[in-house]
């Protein structure tokens, strides 16, 4: 039986891993990346406004305040994660208010300077409302993919917001400048298409991938492996796709409404981007970046880590490039056959990359599941009381965990279900902590593990879990 120190008089910290002593080295890298992002945003807005004077550039300039608010909210939100419950609540409220203000301001700017200019605020609002349910469904599915330890909604939404707001702002200047230069220097046709595709692949994937990289550097406790990387990456991609869908829908509506087919054009864009391309486009590309970063998370050698991160970016850029550059080689007929062709085109051009993401995801889930099962067994064998031998086969299987929760729901209602869900989550957190410690992938003190163990034992009390009876 392992003994561990008594509970400290300070308020308990229920995060997966309490604050480490001293700041890890990666924090400096995080600050460097954040500063670069800020410089790019400021420079792009000013340069674009001064030299190109496009409507999106004005949006970016006026949207700088909104971007600053998002950055501030993120910093406060991240600080809140490490604080005791009282401070955390205060910080989260502040972060929430700032984020809300930023979103409102941003939407206002977007409405006024882009969508309103193109098709009016009504069409912009309808487009946004049409994209919300599909994108929400996408986020729900993406988060559910992590069967063993789901990522917190707050981080999934931060990733989504980055993709929708920050990444789209970051690429405006670069793509506008690239396009302006290329259109004046290159021969129109496939060469120009290839150049534009290089610009989109490179700039958009870099802008989106930075979000996953920052989560990897800053939120190491919530970034366990390849599975988490894919989840965060796909969430960023869904955010980008959300904003891009609205932009395309309103733009095409404005273009084709004088012909009386604006609604069809916008509807077609909605289907292509929010149904057919929901998982096949940006979500797949950024998930590939996330996979690379997730694999780097568990590699020992620094050289291999760098190669894995760079590989993720490279594959995503190539995938994005291939779609943009070679789309014209798969023309769609205007007849009914076109409906089949558009599906086949997506399947053929993006399908292999989505299949690669799914293969990495399934391997990651399988590997993670095995590792957690091993840790459940070890914890049970140590006899700490946090995990009982009879619970091991249940905890090791997502389906059996669900069956046990449903059993609790049937016997003790929603309260029992939630209590058991909390216990299972704490047990999974403990196993995850043990796994990372065994692999020497953790820079948190051992007290974190003790704290998690105490948390599990506390949650196991009959008063906390009314109908806890392990199913065997």
């Amino acid at each position, binding site marked *: 039986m392992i003994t561990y120190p008594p509970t400290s008089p300070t308020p308990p910290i229920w995060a997966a891993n309490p604050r480490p002593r001293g700041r890890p080295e990666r924090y400096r890298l995080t600050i460097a990346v954040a500063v670069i992002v800020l410089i790019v945003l400021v420079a792009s807005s000013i340069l674009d406004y001064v030299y190109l004077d496009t409507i999106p550039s004005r949006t970016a300039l006026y949207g700088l305040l909104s971007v600053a608010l998002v950055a501030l909210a993120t910093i406060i939100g991240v600080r809140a994660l490490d604080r005791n419950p009282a401070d955390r609540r205060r910080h989260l409220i502040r972060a929430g208010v700032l984020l809300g203000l930023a979103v409102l301001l941003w939407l206002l700017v977007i409405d006024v300077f882009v969508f309103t200019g*193109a098709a009016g605020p009504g069409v912009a609002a309808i487009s946004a409302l049409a994209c919300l349910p599909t994108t929400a469904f996408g986020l729900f599915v993406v988060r559910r993919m992590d069967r063993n330890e789901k990522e917190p909604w707050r981080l999934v939404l931060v990733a989504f917001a980055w993709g929708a707001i920050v990444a789209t702002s970051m690429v405006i200047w670069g793509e506008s400048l690239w396009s302006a230069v290329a*259109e*004046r220097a*290159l*021969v*129109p*046709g*496939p*060469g*120009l*298409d*290839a*150049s534009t*595709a*290089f610009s989109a692949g490179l700039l958009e994937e870099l802008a989106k991938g930075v979000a996953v990289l920052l989560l990897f550097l800053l939120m190491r406790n919530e970034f366990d492996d*390849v599975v988490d990387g894919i989840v965060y990456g796909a969430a960023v991609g869904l955010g980008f796709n959300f904003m891009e869908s609205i932009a395309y829908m309103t733009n095409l509506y*404005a*273009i084709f409404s*004088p*012909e009386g087919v604006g609604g069809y054009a916008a509807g077609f864009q909605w289907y292509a981007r929010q149904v057919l391309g929901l998982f096949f486009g940006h979500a797949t590309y950024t998930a*590939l970046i996330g*996979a*690379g970063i997730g*694999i780097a998370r*568990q*590699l020992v050698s620094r050289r*291999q880590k760098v*190669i*894995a991160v760079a*590989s*993720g970016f*490279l*594959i995503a*850029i*190539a*995938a994005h*490039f*291939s779609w943009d*550059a070679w789309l014209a080689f798969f023309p769609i007929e205007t007849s009914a056959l076109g409906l089949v062709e558009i599906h086949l085109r997506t399947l053929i051009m993006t399908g292999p990359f989505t299949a*690669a993401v799914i*293969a*990495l995801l399934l*391997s*990651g889930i399988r*590997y993670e599941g*095995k*590792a957690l099962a091993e840790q459940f067994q070890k914890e049970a064998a140590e006899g700490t009381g946090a995990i009982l031998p009879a619970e091991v086969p249940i905890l090791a299987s997502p389906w059996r965990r669900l069956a046990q929760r449903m059993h609790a729901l049937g016997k003790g209602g929603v309260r029992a279900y939630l209590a058991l869900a909390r216990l299972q989550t704490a047990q999974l957190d403990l196993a995850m902590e043990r796994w990372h410690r065994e692999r020497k992938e953790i820079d948190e003190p051992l007290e974190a593990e003790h704290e998690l163990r105490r948390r599990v034992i506390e949650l196991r009390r009959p008063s906390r879990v009314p109908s806890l009876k392990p199913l065997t």
Partner: protein
Amino acid sequence: MPALGACKQNAPHPLDKLAAVRAAPYDPVRPLYRALLVFDIVALLILAVGLGEFLYFEPPGQSTGLKATIAGVYLYDPTADSTSGPDRRTFIRSEQFAAVVNWSSLPQNIVVDARWYDSFEAVVGRVGPGTPEQLAGQTTIPVGLPAGLKYNLPGQYVFVVERLQGGVPVEVLARRIVLVERE
């Protein structure tokens, strides 16, 4: 020289050597890393093909220094096949317009064409290919309405006079960009 038998006796037993070799612990992250490297090769191939495509359509060292003369872009009357008014850079959707090219400024031993591209990069007007002499009678190149539409699509239109080699445009000899406004 020691006897062969003595050498054999002193040499370590092969099984001892095997026992001394410690197998590296299996790390399941390695297959994921290796899969990533395989995808990397595919990605590099895709980008290499893309670069090849770019270089095929934008071959380096093709600049001849030749310049074609675009007299201007004017309002166009399709029934009379004539242009009118001043040289303009912006039009509204209901206005039809055409570029006027002076082919005589180009040497006769090259193959050229002229094209209009709309904001979706679709070709919406074209003459050629041919030698400048063959195209001398086609100085007005109008923008055609896309099939089924009543008005021009809004956005940026690009007009180019291109030099062709082997049927592929390799150099832009003149370029004009005009804007078709939404309203």
